[in-house]
């Protein structure tokens, strides 16, 4: 698979007078069509990484390539047309006064003509199931619905990469699960690469690959299964938690990591 994001030796520090680095030679590649999760505790540097990936900060050392373009002060505007970003706070990323205005904001910036814009806005709203709400104003929407609108806003730009910057943190577990399902479907139908920056383990479980950041450094990269087996400090997802608890009680469970479905199947046997 062709890489769509390449991060090479990325180093960043906020205060040039000190030695503390927010990121220290971070490298990884994300393949086209992959769901890639970036996890880490508070202060691990994942927010800094998110801001670097979206061009809000400029790399001091190292480089970022997105869709074969290097992220620089000049190219960032073009790269931004290829990425869609959903941020954490549903309220603070709603710019338009109605749902459809908000979805159109990015398209307006491209100076797109009205007909094409309307088509794209309607399509994007249908994809996230918010079409009926297109004339609503944000104060009448729930947090989950606002995040759906934010996703629609990103999808309307027909991006190659969807970056979720802790996008589900402020949602209740139910809307979180529903949104994850939606994104799973979109990933296939809209041919997206998903990069999710998170500390929610259900989100991590949904990913194809995971990178673990600690103190600004990459400590592990691999499939969720491998990560949860190797990193004992991480709170595992429900299935694995259950497996470990059963193992502790002396039940005859398999020794390796199990996903929720696997545990379910095993219990049914």
């Amino acid at each position, binding site marked *: 698979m062709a890489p769509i994001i390449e991060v090479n030796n990325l180093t960043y520090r906020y205060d040039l007078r000190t030695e503390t680095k927010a990121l220290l030679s971070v490298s990884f590649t994300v393949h086209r069509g992959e769901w890639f999760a970036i996890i880490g505790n508070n202060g691990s540097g994942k927010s800094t990484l998110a801001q670097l990936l979206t061009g809000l900060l400029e790399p001091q050392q190292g480089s970022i390539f997105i869709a074969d373009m290097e992220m620089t002060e000049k190219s960032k505007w073009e790269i931004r047309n290829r990425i869609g970003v959903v941020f954490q706070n549903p309220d603070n990323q709603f710019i338009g006064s109605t749902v459809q205005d908000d979805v159109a904001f990015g398209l307006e910036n491209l*100076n797109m003509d*009205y007909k094409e814009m309307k088509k794209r806005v309607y399509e994007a709203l249908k994809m996230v199931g918010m079409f009926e709400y297109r004339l609503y104003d944000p104060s009448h929407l729930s947090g989950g619905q606002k995040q759906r609108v934010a996703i629609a806003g990103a999808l309307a730009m027909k991006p190659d990469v969807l970056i979720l910057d802790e996008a589900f943190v402020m949602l209740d577990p139910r809307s979180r699960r529903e949104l994850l399902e939606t994104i799973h479907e979109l990933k296939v139908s809209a041919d997206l690469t998903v990069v999710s920056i998170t500390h929610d383990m259900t989100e991590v479980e949904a990913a194809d690959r995971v990178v673990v950041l600690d103190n600004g450094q990459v400590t592990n990269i691999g499939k969720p299964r491998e990560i949860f087996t190797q990193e004992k400090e991480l709170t595992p997802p429900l299935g694995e938690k259950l497996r470990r608890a059963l193992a502790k009680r002396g039940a005859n469970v398999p020794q390796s990591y199990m996903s929720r479905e696997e545990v379910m199947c095993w219990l049914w046997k």
Partner: protein
Amino acid sequence: MNKLSLGRYVPGDSILHQLDPRAKLVSGFYFIIVLFIANNWQTYLLLWLFTLGVMRLSKVHLYTYFRGVRPLIWLILFTVVLQMLFTAGGTIYVEWGPIRISEFGLINGVYIFCRFVMIIFISTAITLTTKPIDLTDGIDSLLGPLRKLNIPVDEISLMLSISLRFIPNLLDETQRVMDAQRARGTEFGEGSLVQQMKTLVPIFLPLFTNSLNRAEELANVMEVKGYQSGIKRSSFRKLRWKTCDTITLCVMAALTIGLILLRLN
């Protein structure tokens, strides 16, 4: 806090609601200018008929209009009293030391009162029937020619629309902060004026810091979505000038002609 009272827009489907915001804004300003043509009771009668007609067309309850006058009533009465006291001429009705109320003064006072109230009624009719965001679009479109003078019209209207969009959020937040302070034993609206003002400080500080954070996040979002000031942007919201808007302007012209004819009589 009631979200609906803000911007005071009342949803509806009256003719006034359907008019283009530009037609309403232009007519509103024009009305203020034509007011000065009126100088006798016939002209004022015509203006009143027009104003009441507009109020009726808006299908909004009369009470809402009177509420619009209430906060300004003292200013209006003050001006009226000044007019009554300092206009001389005609029969003198009251003479009490330096205070003298004459016929002309009284008539002038009534006229001034009518003018004020009509201006308020008409502008209320506009804000009641137009969504704040449509007003912003209307202003944006009307200020369009100023672009040639390098005035950043688009930025101004985007700023306006974003501030309108965030008013409910700020109200919610104020409520939350106040509740938090109340839970810690602060009592609002009690004690001397100084004490009351002191209780407001711990509300404003968190509100300000939150607003700054919010602004920064919003700026990031806008940047990531490709917003650059000064570039050419298309617009998803479109204002459509319809026949009824042209008719509105014709009505305004007819009103002017009527006023001039009545004035000449």
